[in-house]
C-alpha cells in the first residue's frame, strides 16, 4: 500500500469512527436520559406531521423559521382548544373508570374462569389448562401499575409537553442542517450510500407516520361516534385507547376492542349491546382495511405478515406496548438499510 493510499484509509477510518461515535452518542442520549425517548418519539411524529405544511409555506417565499412558526402556532392552538374541550370529559371518565375498576376486574376474572371451564370441558380434561392463573396476575399487574403510575405519568407528561415541542421546532428549522453536519463525517466511499439511505428512510418514515396517524384518527373517530350513539360509558377513553393501539398491526385492533367488551360484560350488558360494540369496532376495522390501508400504508411499508408478527413479539418483549407501536417503522427502516447495504456490497456490477 502506497503512503497516499494509507493516508486515504486512515482518514476514512477516522471519519467512520466520528460518524458512528456521533450516532451512538445520540442513541445513548435518547434512550438513557429520562423522558428523552418519549419526547423524541413525539417530536418525530410532530415533525413528520408538520413538515409538509412548513414546506408549503416556505414555497410561498417565507423564511424557514417563519414557515415553521406559523403551523407550529396553529398546531398549538388546535391542541389547546382540544385540551380545553376534551380534558374535563376525559378526567371525569378516568375518575369514574378508576372507581368502577374493581367491578370490571371482577368481571374479567369471572370471564376468564368461564372460558377456562368451557375449554376444559371441550378438551375433556385431557390437557389441563390454566388461563386464569396465567393471564390474571398479568392483568392485575398492568391495572395496578396503570393507576399507581398515573400521577407520575402526568408529572412526566409536563416534561414531555415542554421538551417535545422544543425538539420539534428545532427539527423543523435546523434538522436538515444537523443531518448534513452529521453526514459530513461519513467517509467518501460511503457518502452517496448514506445520503441516499437517509433520504429513503426519511421519506418512508414520513409517509408511514402520517398514514398511521390518519388511520388512528379515523378509527378512533368511528369508534367514538359509534359508542356515543350507543350511549356507552367512557366513549372518549375507549376511542383514544383503540386509536392508539390501532398502530399495532393485527394485535392492536383486538386489544383495542377488549376493554369495551369487558366493560359491557361487567355492567351486565345484553348480547345485543355486545353485538353492537363488535359491529362498531368491526366497521372501523373494515373501513381501515378496505379504504385506508390499501391507499395509505400498503405502498409505504412492504413487510411480510410473518415479519410483522415477529417484529411485534420482539418489540413487546423489549419495550412493552411502546415497543409494539414503534417496531414496524424500526423494522422497515432496518429493511431499507439492509437492502441498500447488500446492493452496495454484493450487487456491484451489472
Amino acid at each position: 500500500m502506497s503512503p497516499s493510499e494509507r493516508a486515504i484509509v486512515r482518514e476514512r477510518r477516522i471519519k467512520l469512527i466520528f460518524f458512528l461515535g456521533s450516532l451512538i452518542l445520540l442513541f445513548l442520549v435518547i434512550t438513557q436520559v429520562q423522558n428523552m425517548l418519549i419526547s423524541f418519539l413525539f417530536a418525530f411524529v410532530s415533525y413528520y406531521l408538520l413538515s409538509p405544511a412548513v414546506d408549503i409555506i416556505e414555497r410561498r417565499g417565507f423564511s424557514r423559521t417563519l414557515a415553521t412558526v406559523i403551523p407550529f402556532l396553529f398546531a398549538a392552538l388546535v391542541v389547546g382548544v382540544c385540551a380545553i374541550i376534551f380534558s374535563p370529559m376525559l378526567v371525569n371518565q378516568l375518575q369514574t373508570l378508576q372507581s368502577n375498576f374493581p367491578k370490571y376486574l371482577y368481571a374479567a376474572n369471572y370471564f376468564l374462569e368461564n372460558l377456562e371451564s368451557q375449554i376444559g370441558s371441550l378438551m375433556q380434561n385431557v390437557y389441563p389448562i390454566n388461563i386464569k392463573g396465567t393471564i390474571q396476575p398479568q392483568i392485575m399487574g398492568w391495572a395496578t401499575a396503570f393507576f399507581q403510575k398515573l400521577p407520575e405519568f402526568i408529572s412526566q407528561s409536563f416534561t414531555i409537553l415542554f421538551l417535545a415541542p422544543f425538539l420539534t421546532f428545532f427539527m423543523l428549522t435546523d434538522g436538515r442542517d444537523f443531518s448534513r453536519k452529521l453526514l459530513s463525517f461519513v467517509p467518501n466511499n460511503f457518502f452517496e450510500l448514506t445520503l441516499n439511505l437517509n433520504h429513503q428512510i426519511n421519506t418512508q418514515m414520513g409517509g408511514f407516520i402520517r398514514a398511521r396517524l390518519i388511520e388512528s384518527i379515523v378509527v378512533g373517530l368511528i369508534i367514538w361516534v359509534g359508542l356515543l350513539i350507543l350511549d356507552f360509558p367512557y366513549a372518549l377513553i375507549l376511542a383514544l385507547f383503540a386509536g392508539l393501539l390501532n398502530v399495532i398491526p393485527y394485535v392492536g385492533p383486538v386489544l383495542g376492542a377488549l376493554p369495551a367488551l369487558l366493560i359491557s360484560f361487567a355492567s351486565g350488558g345484553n348480547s345485543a349491546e355486545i353485538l353492537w360494540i363488535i359491529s362498531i369496532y368491526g366497521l372501523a376495522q373494515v373501513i381501515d382495511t378496505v379504504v385506508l390501508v390499501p391507499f395509505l400504508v400498503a405502498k409505504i411499508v412492504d413487510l411480510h405478515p410473518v415479519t410483522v408478527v415477529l417484529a411485534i413479539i420482539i418489540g413487546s418483549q423489549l419495550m412493552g406496548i411502546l415497543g409494539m407501536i414503534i417496531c414496524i417503522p424500526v423494522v422497515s427502516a432496518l429493511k431499507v438499510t439492509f437492502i441498500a447495504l447488500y446492493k452496495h456490497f454484493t450487487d456491484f456490477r451489472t
Partner: protein
Amino acid sequence: MNLLWENLFRTNSKEKSLAQKLKQNVLFSDLSISEMKLVEKIVNVRTYRPSEHIFRQGEVGVGMYIIAKGCVNIYVEEIVPTTGETKSALVTQLKEGDFFGDLALVEANSRRSATAIAHDECTLIGFFKPDLIEVTQRNPTAGVKILMRLGEVLGTRLIETTTKITSLKKEKATT
C-alpha cells in the same frame, strides 16, 4: 497574520466562492440570488486525496459532482475476453468547473458507467437526487430551472452520442 493589513471585513469568502462556482455551472446558471442561497445550503462539499476513488464503475450512483478544485480522471473498466482480466482505460481528465455523473440525477437505479479518481487534491461539490428533490419541494421554481437545464445538458449529450454513432456507422459502411 498582520492584523493591520489583513482584511478583517472579508465575510464568508469560502461561501462566496462556492456560490460563484455554482453560478458558473450550467445547471445553476439561471438561479436568482435567493434560490442560489438555498442550493448553497443543500449541496455537499467533499474533499478527496490524490488517487482516491470518487466512485467506481458499476456502483449505485445518486448524483453529480462539480469540480471546485483539482482534476478528476475518468476511467472505463473492461474485461478482456481472452484473458478475463479487467483493463481500465483513461477516458478523459476533467478540470475545475467541469461536472460529471449528472445522468444519475434522473435515472432510476442508476449505476456508474465509469470510475472517477481524484488526480490531485480535489474539492468537489456533490449535488444528489435527494438534494434535487429537496430543492424542488422547498422552492419549485428553482427546481424547475435546474431540471430544465439538466434536460438541456442530457439532450445535448444525446445529440452528440447520436451524431457519433451515425458517423461510426457511416465509417463502417464505407469500409
